[in-house]
């Protein structure tokens, strides 16, 4: 899943005819100040970072007059997930009469698309939906035939909305739904969705004051206009230098073999796969009392060179004291290529499996040839007669024994 920054999402909404606050993206406090001076009232300053719940993290502030530049400067001096905050969205403050909530999302359990609505929007919506679920309405959308406006009229009407606000809100929901399907979004949330009554008694205005949007990475290839705007949602921390190296390895021969890597702080390097097998090894090493230095996943029949490069990355984790190489019995991954890549990487780094514990548990295509390569390099090889748990226990005990030997 990749997130769109708020102003990019609002641009898409505005193009679809949904009113959004007047706003501007700035990179300096002075620019924030000069934009604010063009507006009659106060402004909202939002840090442009790919995250939810920014208001609760102090990344959204209200200011007016001279305070605008002060607050903008303060936000620009902060960091988010170790990365500097470089851009702000400065917007007019909308005179909100009531804050509504509208969201369209994929419901994985129902395998369908669901719209959620509430008359009680704002930053507490999650609490509201948990504590008073009756305040949040749900409507399943037909992804084959498209959606008619009455679905939304029913949704809002059931929540108690009536009068000229009802068609106005319905219109915004229809437009937002179009954006959701056309962008292949995974979520599009308008919160708060502000109802602004006109002084002259004409139809109320509906303004998307806050917008959250994420799109599907697997669909981006057919949305070239969205691809440059989509930011990977790690929600954790920026990639480490070793993780960046692993991404380069993954990009090398992109159509042959998957390679994923997350750096951790343990001492046993794992070079394992596939998707489920890597989870088995990781759980098993932890349950045997070991501490993984990384999470990896290599599979899809990678070349020996790709294995060599990823092994190089895995063995470069700080404080590594042993290596576990392993897969579940493979359907097509060639064990001899895994063996050749691992052994070459050990050689590259001048590591000797006689003093640095390496356990390999590889069963499947060409495993006899693989065994020969591993054993020639003094790697402890476990084959068909072993289990994945056996291999995890063995590497943990070998690393522990090496530690004891070093201490004496």
């Amino acid at each position, binding site marked *: 899943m990749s997130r769109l920054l708020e102003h990019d999402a609002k641009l898409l909404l505005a193009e679809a005819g949904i009113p959004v606050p007047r706003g501007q993206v700035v990179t300096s406090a002075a620019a924030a100040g000069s934009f604010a001076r063009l507006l009659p009232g106060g402004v909202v300053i939002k840090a442009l970072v790919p995250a939810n719940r920014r208001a609760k993290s102090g990344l959204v502030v209200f200011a007016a007059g001279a305070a605008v530049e002060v607050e903008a400067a303060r936000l620009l001096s902060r960091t988010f997930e170790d990365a500097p905050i470089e851009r702000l969205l400065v917007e007019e403050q909308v005179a909100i009469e009531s804050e509504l909530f509208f969201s369209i999302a994929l419901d994985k359990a129902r395998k369908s698309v669901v719209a959620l609505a509430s008359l009680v929007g704002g930053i507490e919506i999650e609490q509201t939906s948990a504590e008073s679920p009756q305040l949040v309405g749900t409507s399943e959308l037909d992804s084959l035939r498209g959606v008619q406006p009455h679905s939304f009229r029913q949704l809002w009407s059931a929540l108690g909305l009536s009068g000229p606000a009802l068609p106005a809100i319905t219109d915004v929901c229809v437009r937002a739904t179009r954006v959701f399907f056309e962008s292949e979004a*995974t979520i599009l949330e308008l919160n708060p969705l502000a109802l602004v009554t006109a002084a002259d008694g004409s139809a109320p205005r509906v303004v998307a004051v806050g917008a959250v949007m994420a799109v599907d990475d697997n669909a981006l290839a057919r949305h070239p206009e969205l691809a440059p705007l989509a930011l990977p949602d790690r929600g954790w921390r920026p990639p480490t230098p070793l993780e960046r190296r692993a991404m380069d390895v993954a990009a090398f021969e992109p159509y042959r073999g998957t390679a994923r890597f997350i750096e951790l702080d343990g001492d046993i390097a794992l070079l394992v796969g596939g998707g489920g097998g890597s989870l088995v090894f990781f759980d098993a090493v932890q349950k045997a009392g070991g501490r993984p230095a990384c999470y990896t996943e290599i599979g899809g029949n990678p070349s020996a060179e790709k294995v060599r490069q990823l092994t190089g990355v895995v063995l470069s984790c700080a404080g590594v004291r042993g290596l576990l190489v392993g897969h579940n019995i493979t359907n097509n991954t060639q064990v001899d290529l895994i063996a050749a890549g691992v052994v070459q990487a050990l050689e590259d780094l001048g590591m000797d499996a006689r003093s640095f514990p390496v356990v390999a548990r590889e069963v499947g295509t060409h495993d006899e040839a693989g065994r020969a390569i591993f054993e020639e390099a003094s790697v402890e090889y476990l084959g068909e007669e072993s289990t994945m748990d056996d291999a995890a226990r063995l590497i943990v005990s070998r690393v522990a024994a090496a530690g004891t030997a070093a201490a004496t």
Partner: protein
Amino acid sequence: MSLGIPDSPRVVVQGITGREAGMVVAQMHAYGTRVAAGVTPGKEGAQVDAVPVFDTVAAARADTGGAPFDISIVYVPPFAAVDAVSEAVEAGIGLLLVVTENIPLHDAIRLHAIAREAHASVIGPNSVGLIVPSRRIKLGAIGGDRPDRAFVPGRVGVISRSGGLTAEVGLQLRRRGLGVSTAVSIGGDALIGLEPADVARALGDDDETDVIVYVGEPGTSMEERLADAITSGEITKPVVALILGEFMEDFPQGTVFGHAGAVIERSQGSPREKKRRLERAGAMVAESLDEAISHVESEVSR
């Protein structure tokens, strides 16, 4: 025989001229499962391992005797999957095995909606297949080029989110002198057709299955639905369950490990919660793959 697969299924492969599909067709033939026809638009007249290739599923059906196919194995590229599934159900196919990975989520939702309306079942997407060793039925890459190494005939039904672990469970059962009735790789995606509970219900009704072993992963609420199905008595055989990825609970939400479906979001999908639910429902919940196999062994010898 479970899941509505006849003893000698009439199989069509959509996207048969791709590299992987060609390899798998040869593996299936070597194992004893015949592919009746293949489909790749624009390649009519070609042959893959002696299987005739057609431009459309309808033409494939008409030119190979006219009977509907029992199953289609879908190997088309991700953006073509909805179209392929739609074509298959229009040609009257009631069971689809979708191997394709990385299908966009909106397409996955449409694909499942189309199948649901046609009362067709979908295994996958992102499945490596299904195997019935006693009948030499192998659909998809499951077991690779040496399926007998992992799968020998027996009375254990295997269901796994991970294709590789479907075979690993088979291998570990074989080491202990046990065999497999039917093994199904149900796919690692967040949006799959037949879920653990659906396949467990089918294996429960299968007189060749005595015990069901399920290997699940973090994310989604499929294991919770399996637990509900056990509790309500819909699953009539003992279930041994292993839920992988407990370590993921120590990581921030949203971090993806393994499969696309294996992501813990808003505290939903936690392995520990899934284990609690399954245990309460009466499943034998294992702490490791070794222990899961031991549970199966003790259940079989009871």
